[in-house]
C-alpha cells in the first residue's frame, strides 16, 4: 500500500510535466502513437479500425446520423411508373422510414463503440508515456495478446456476451422505444408510406380522457387494473395452494409421499401450451364441460359483470398449471425448516395455526420473497395463459370501444393485438411497451428492496 502510494507520488509530476507528441497525434490519428513507439501491429489495428469507421460514416452511416437531426424520417414517397415495353407499372422506390430509423440507431451505436475505442487508444498512449518516463519498454503485440489470456482473461470472455447484448437487446430496445415517438401505424406503413416524429403525441393520446369511451386513458386504466388483479391472484393462488398441498404431502403419517408428489408433478410433463389449448377446448361454448353439464355456459366469452366468468376461469386454469411448480419448490423448503423451531413452538404450547403463522409462513416468505416478486412481474407479462385461453376476449364495445383492447387483455396481450390487428398501431403498442417496462422495473425495485430477504440477509443462516 505504502509502496504504491510513493510510486504514484513520484509519477505524478512527470505525468503533468509533459504529454508526448506521439500521444498528441494519437488524439486525431488513433494508433499513430502506438506505432511511433514500436507497437506496430496494435497501432495498425487502431488505424485500420479508424479507417473502416471513417469509410462506414462517409459511405453509409453519415447520412443516417444526419437524419437524426433532420427532424423527419424520409421525404420521398414510393410511387409507380408506366413501363411501355413490359406493359406494366414498375415501382419507384421511395424513402423507407423504418430502415432510416433502424440504420440511424445502428449508426449511433457504431459511433458510440468507436468513441470507446478512441478513448482506449488515448488512454493507452498516456499509459505508454508513463511507462516510458518510468524507464519501461512498451509491450510487444504478442505480450499484449498473452495478457488477454492471463490477467485480462475477462475481456475475451465477456466481450461476446456484451456485444450480443448490445446488438440483440439494447439496440432493438432503443429502436422500439423510439417508435413510441413516431406516427408508425396502419396509415404510415413503410415502404409505401413514410412515418415521422410526433414527439409526445402518442403518450398524450394514451393518457387523455377525451374522445369516445373515455379516451385511451380510461381503457388503459381498465387494462392496467385487470393486469394487476390477475397478477395478484395468479401469483398468490398458486403460492397458497401449492404451499397447502406441499404441507399436506409433507405431513407426518401421510402414506406414499413420493407417489403423491410425482402425481402432481406429472402435470409439468405436459407442455403448458398443450394444457392451455386443451382447457380452452374443454371450456368452449360447445366444449366437453358444457356437454356434461347439459347447459350452455359461456365460460370464456361471457362479458357480463365485467367479464367475471372468463376472468375466474382463467385464474382457475392457471392454478391447475402453476400449482405443481410451487408444490415442488415448497416441499423442498418445508423440509429445510429446522425441526427445533417446531419443537420449541410445540413445547411452548402453540396451536397448529399459530405454528403455521409464526414459524412456517415467516420462514417461507423470507426464503421465497424474491421468487414471489419474479412470479408477480412474470404474471404481469403472462402472455400464454391469456392468449391461448381467451385471446384477450371477449370483446366489449362498451368498455373498450375502438382502443383494440378486450375484456381479459393484459397490457402485454393488448400490445400484441395492437401490432397484429387489422389496423396495426405500432406507435401506441410501443408506448404500452414503455409503460410495462416502467411498471415492472418500479415494482421489482420497490418490492425487492423492501423484502426481508434483502434487509435481513443473515437472519436464517
Amino acid at each position, binding site marked *: 500500500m505504502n509502496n504504491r502510494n510513493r510510486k504514484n507520488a513520484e509519477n505524478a509530476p512527470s505525468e503533468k510535466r509533459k504529454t508526448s507528441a506521439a500521444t498528441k497525434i494519437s488524439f486525431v490519428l488513433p494508433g499513430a502513437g502506438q506505432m511511433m513507439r514500436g507497437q506496430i501491429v496494435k497501432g495498425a489495428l487502431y488505424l485500420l479500425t479508424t479507417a473502416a469507421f471513417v469509410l462506414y460514416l462517409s459511405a453509409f452511416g453519415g447520412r443516417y446520423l444526419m437524419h437524426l437531426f433532420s427532424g423527419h424520417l424520409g421525404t420521398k414517397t414510393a410511387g409507380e411508373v408506366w413501363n411501355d415495353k413490359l406493359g*406494366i407499372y414498375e415501382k419507384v422506390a421511395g424513402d423507407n422510414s423504418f430502415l432510416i430509423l*433502424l440504420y440511424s440507431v445502428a449508426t449511433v451505436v457504431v459511433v458510440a463503440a468507436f468513441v470507446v475505442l478512441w478513448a482506449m487508444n488515448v488512454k493507452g498512449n498516456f499509459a505508454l508515456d508513463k511507462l516510458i518516463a518510468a524507464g519501461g519498454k512498451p509491450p510487444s503485440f504478442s505480450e499484449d495478446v498473452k495478457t488477454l489470456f492471463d490477467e485480462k482473461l475477462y475481456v475475451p470472455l465477456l466481450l461476446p456476451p456484451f456485444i450480443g447484448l448490445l446488438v440483440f437487446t439494447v439496440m*432493438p430496445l432503443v429502436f422500439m422505444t423510439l417508435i413510441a415517438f413516431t406516427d408508425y401505424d396502419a396509415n404510415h406503413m413503410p*415502404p409505401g*408510406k413514410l412515418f415521422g416524429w410526433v414527439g409526445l403525441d402518442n403518450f398524450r393520446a394514451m393518457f387523455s380522457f377525451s374522445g369516445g369511451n373515455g379516451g385511451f386513458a380510461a381503457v388503459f386504466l381498465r387494462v392496467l387494473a385487470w393486469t394487476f388483479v390477475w397478477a395478484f391472484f395468479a401469483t398468490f393462488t398458486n403460492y397458497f395452494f401449492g404451499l397447502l398441498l406441499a404441507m399436506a404431502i409433507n405431513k407426518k403419517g401421510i402414506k406414499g409421499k413420493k407417489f403423491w408428489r410425482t402425481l402432481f408433478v406429472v402435470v409439468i410433463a405436459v407442455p403448458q401450451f398443450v394444457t392451455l389449448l386443451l382447457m380452452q377446448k374443454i371450456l368452449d361454448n360447445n366444449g366437453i364441460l358444457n356437454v356434461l353439464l347439459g347447459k350452455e355456459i359461456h365460460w370464456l366469452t361471457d362479458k357480463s359483470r365485467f367479464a367475471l366468468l372468463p376472468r375466474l376461469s382463467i385464474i382457475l386454469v392457471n392454478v391447475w398449471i402453476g400449482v405443481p411448480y410451487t408444490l415442488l419448490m415448497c416441499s423442498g423448503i418445508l423440509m429445510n425448516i429446522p425441526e427445533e423451531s417446531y419443537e420449541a413452538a410445540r413445547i411452548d404450547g402453540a396451536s397448529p395455526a399459530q405454528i403455521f403463522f409464526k414459524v412456517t409462513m415467516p420462514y417461507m416468505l423470507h426464503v421465497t420473497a424474491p421468487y414471489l416478486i419474479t412470479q408477480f412481474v412474470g404474471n404481469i407479462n403472462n402472455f400464454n395463459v391469456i392468449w391461448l385461453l381467451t385471446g384477450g376476449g*371477449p370483446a366489449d364495445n*362498451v368498455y373498450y370501444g*375502438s382502443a383494440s383492447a378486450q375484456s381479459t387483455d393484459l397490457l402485454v396481450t393488448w400490445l400484441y393485438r395492437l401490432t397484429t390487428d387489422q389496423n396495426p398501431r405500432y406507435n401506441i403498442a410501443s408506448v404500452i411497451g414503455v409503460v410495462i417496462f416502467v411498471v415492472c422495473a418500479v415494482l421489482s425495485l420497490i418490492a425487492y428492496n423492501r423484502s426481508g430477504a434483502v434487509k435481513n440477509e443473515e437472519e436464517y443462516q
Partner: protein
Amino acid sequence: MSGKKGRTARAFLLVAAFVAAAGCWGKGGGDAVTLTVWRAEADKAFADEVARAYKEANPDKTYKFIFADQGEGEVATKVLNDVEKAADVFSFSSDQLGKLVNGDALSRIGGETLEKMKRENSAESVDSASVTIGGEERTYAFPYTDNTFFLYYDKSAFSEEDVRSLDGILAKCSASKRFAMPLNDGWYNTAFYFGKNLGYEVTYDDSLTETKITCDFGNDEGKAVTKALFETVSDPRVRADADDSKIVAGFSDGSVIAAASGIWNKNSLQGYLGENFGVAKLPTYTLSRGTAEEEQVQLVSFAGYKLMGASKHSAHPAEAIRFAEFYTNEENQLRHFEMRGLVPTNARAKADERVQADECAQAITEQLRFTKTQKNVPTTLWLPMQALGNAMITGKNGFDLETELAACVRAIEK
C-alpha cells in the same frame, strides 16, 4: 421486428440468388422464374391445375410455383407485415383492396392488360378491384368471382315457400334441428341493417387514409333492426355462433337443417344433403316497431369479389402480373366453377350453359339483386359488429340494447 428478420433473409436470398446465377452462368442456360402464390386452402387442387396449364402454355420458359395456404380474409394483414417479403401473387377478398393499395403492396395494372380485363369482366367486379386516388381511377387486381352468401337448406324439411321468410324457416326448426348463421360476424349480421338501407359513410384523403367515418346503425330504425337481430340470436332454434366448421358439422349430424353461408361450403354440404340439397336467396325477417305494425325485410348481404393481385415488390413483376391474369382468365374461371362452383365474373364464362344451369349460380344471381357492394367499408366495422354479436349471444337476458348499440356505433365511427 419482422422487418429486420426480412432483411437478413433477403441478404441471404441475395447471396443465394447470386450463387445460383453464377451456377446457371456456368451451365450456360436456364431462366427459371419462381413465383410464390398465396391462395385459399380449398383452392389447392385448382391452383395446381392452373400452374400445370400455365407451364404448358409457356413452354419457352421454366416456371416454378410455390403455393401456400392463406385464408383470403387475412391476406392484407399478412402481406402488410412485410410487403417486400409477401408472395408474388396472392388471392384476397375485395374489401382489403384499400389497405393493400395504401400499404403499397399491389402492382397497378394498366395498358392492354387492363383494357382486356375491362372488356371481359363485369363492370362491378372491375370496379371492386379499383380505387380512386385524386380523382383518378386505378385498378390493382384481377377479379375472378363474386363473394357473397345465400341460403342452404334441406329440401326434405322445407318447401320453397318456407324458405322465403325467416319465420317460415324457424317454424320448421327446433332446438335440435336449427337454422345457422354466423351472427357474431360483421360480414353476416350487417345483413339485417342493410335490409333497411342503413349504412355507413367513409371519407378518404388522397393516400386512402380514412379521415371520417359515420354510421347510422344507431338511429331509431337501427334500434328496431338491432332488436330484431337480438330476437333472432336469442331464439333457441337459431345457431348464432355458427362459423363455417360448425355449419358443416351441423349439416353432417343433422343438428342444422338450414344455414346462411357462401359458395365455399357447397361441395361439403352437397355431400351431406345429397338429393335434398337446396339453395335459395336469403330469407326476409320480421321487423316490428313496438306497435302492432310489422314488416317483412329482405336480408341484404355483402357482395364482394375475390381478386388476384400481383406484388409490387416481386422480383419478377411482369411475370407475376401475367400469371395473375392467367389465373383469372375465361378458361380458368370456368375451371374454378367446375371444381368449386365459384360463379365467374368473366361475361363469356358466366354465359356458359353449365353455369347458367347451376342452381347455386342461380341462387347467387338472385341474391345479387339484394346485396350491398363491399367497397369503401370502414376498416373499423368488423370488430365492433363482432363484439355486438357476441354480446347478444352471451348476454341473453342481460343484453342492454341501447348501451351496446351506441357503444358499437361509437367504436365504428371516427
